């Protein structure tokens, strides 16, 4: 027991969905819990163990001065820090505030801003501390989480894809919905990991796993225009859960 690796789960600004993915591993949860020591997971247990921790899963984005200090403390106590989900890897949907006039945003929002303390920006863990591994998605994929924890327990580096959702459509046998039905789809520029879910439901990918490792976004944007998407809609679809990631890397489609 004393030698079992320790796992801690931390929450920043988020919806709790990514850490819920761990509790959603109904078949594996008790098996995983038998091999590791869940040392800090307030959503699941009131018992906590002091650090250091072997693996820390960090959900959510950094949005308050207190949380800037907290992410540093967590880094110091963690051998491996894994950022889980679009909030922790890209600032999440709440990073839309980074593009708004912060003062205006704040004055619209708060009757009594003196009660609160929030930063003008929502940023990923990696903006503050070195991050060992990132699981993408809003939310993360449950299987990827299990595979990652299993690999880390075995001392292996997990195998996380950098290619696009298009590869997963082919693997799944889904006919390309853009080719067949003219449905606009972000699949060509979005990171795989979800199993190409949306196209299987007749819906275009909306980029919830963020950009793939290599993308040709300008080419896709041209294609989206051909498919009658307006500039407003193109701007909107890239500015959702991974707005910071799609805006980074020099290929902000709105520029």
């Amino acid at each position: 027991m004393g030698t079992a690796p320790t796992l801690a789960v931390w929450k920043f600004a988020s919806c709790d969905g990514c850490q819920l993915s761990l509790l959603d591993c109904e078949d594996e949860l008790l098996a995983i819990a038998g091999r590791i020591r869940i040392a800090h997971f307030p959503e699941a247990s009131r018992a906590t163990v002091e650090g250091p921790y072997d693996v820390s899963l960090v959900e959510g984005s950094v949005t308050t001065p207190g949380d800037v200090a907290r992410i540093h403390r967590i880094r110091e106590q963690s051998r491996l820090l894994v950022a889980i989900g679009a909030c922790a890897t890209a600032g999440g949907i709440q990073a839309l505030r980074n593009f708004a006039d912060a003062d205006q945003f704040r004055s619209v929002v708060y009757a009594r801003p003196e009660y609160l303390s929030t930063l003008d920006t929502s940023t990923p863990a990696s903006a503050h501390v070195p991050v060992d591994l990132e699981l993408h998605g809003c939310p993360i994929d449950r299987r990827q989480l299990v595979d990652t924890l299993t690999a880390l327990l075995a001392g292996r580096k997990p195998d996380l894809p950098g290619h696009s959702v298009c590869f997963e459509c082919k693997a799944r046998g889904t006919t390309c919905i853009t080719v067949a039905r003219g449905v606009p789809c972000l699949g060509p520029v979005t990171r795989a990991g979800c199993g190409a879910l949306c196209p299987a439901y007749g819906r275009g990918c909306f980029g919830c796993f963020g950009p793939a490792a290599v993308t040709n976004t300008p080419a896709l944007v041209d294609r989206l225009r051909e498919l009658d998407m307006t500039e407003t809609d193109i701007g909107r679809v890239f500015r959702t859960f991974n707005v910071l990631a799609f805006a980074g890397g020099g290929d902000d489609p709105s520029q």
Partner: protein
Amino acid sequence: MTHRSDRSLSVAGLARVEGEGAMHVRVDGATVTDVRLEIYEPPRFFEALLVGRGYTEVPDITARVCGICPVAYQMSACAAVEDACQSTVDGTLADLRRLLYCGEWIESHALHIYLLHAPDFLGYPGAVELARDHRPVVERGLSIKKAGNELLTLLGGRAIHPVNVKVGGFYRVPAREELRRLVTPLRRARDDALSTVEWVAGFEYPDFAHDHELLALVEPGRYAIETGTPTTDRGLTFAVRAFEEHVIEEQVPHSTALHATLAGRGRYLTGPTARYTLNHRWLSPLAREAARSAGLGTGCRNPFRSIVVRAVELVYACDEALRLIDGYEPPAAAAVEVPPRAGVGYGATEAPRGVLFHRYRLAADGTVDSARIVPPTAQNQACIEDDLRRFVAARLDLSDERLTYECEQAIRNYDPCISCATHFLDLHVARTVQ
């Protein structure tokens, strides 16, 4: 032990609630002078970031308020947006929405009963520790939860933030055979839910009753889930479209969530016990019988027994899902067209934790001009604090450690979803500014 004066208890990080909260209680002598449920979850400004977005994006964006009840957000959002556009979604598409919602009730209630709440009654810090001694019981809970997730996954694409919901209906509707595959797991879940009712009915419950006004949606003929009229146990009824005249929110310094009250009436409670009290006669025969054998009667005013109500609703949600699957014939189209229209729309549905109100003002091209969301935990916060005040006053003899532990449990009775409650600070402001 004698009463010590000037005690102060606090729990800095509440465990087994969704989100970030803390509790502070001050006792001077034999008087409880201050009780605060402090919600320090950083706000994520949802109402502000919705402004300027397209009306079809609202269900996906608001789902991200809460990973535990994303379907509730999608359903209230669709209802409000469709109301603004003067469109109606009915027939089989409405049934499929109710079916999807049953999946979320099953998943969320199983999560709360087995992983978050039951450990309190049995003296364990959490479900993993509980499983060391009672593995089959925890496995039963996980298996029910899994059935709910299977339903969500089939109909929604995935359990957390389903991708298949859209304004007007769905992107794709299932074939009859696909839904039939859920019958076996759901039947098993229904049996397990019946065992759950029996199991939790045997827990020991502190003797405690509150006198809060209870608010739930009511739709005569069926247990309210995705539709209904806001109604209280003291005779107040109002149209969903009029909710802003009745539900008044106030900012309090110690919380990033608002306190809601009913105009001219005061604090009120929403959630499973309110829902049961106002809707119990429309439970399915099986669920009604389970409630009766668990001793629930015609209402529930002991928040500790909310776990029994959740278990009964679990039976109902499985039963209702099976009924909907049984009668399912795929509709001609997966969605109805909802053309944009300038207007204001209102929506309310029964999230697992209580009534969730949405309101949107749309421009003619469907751009969101303003948004307002009133989640259940914000509505319940005043009641939770009131319960804590009375609860502590009656237990001043307990040691700090024991009292703190029991207070934590009292808070978990409400399954507070702090992530939801917190993102709405701006709502209040939008209203005072206008």
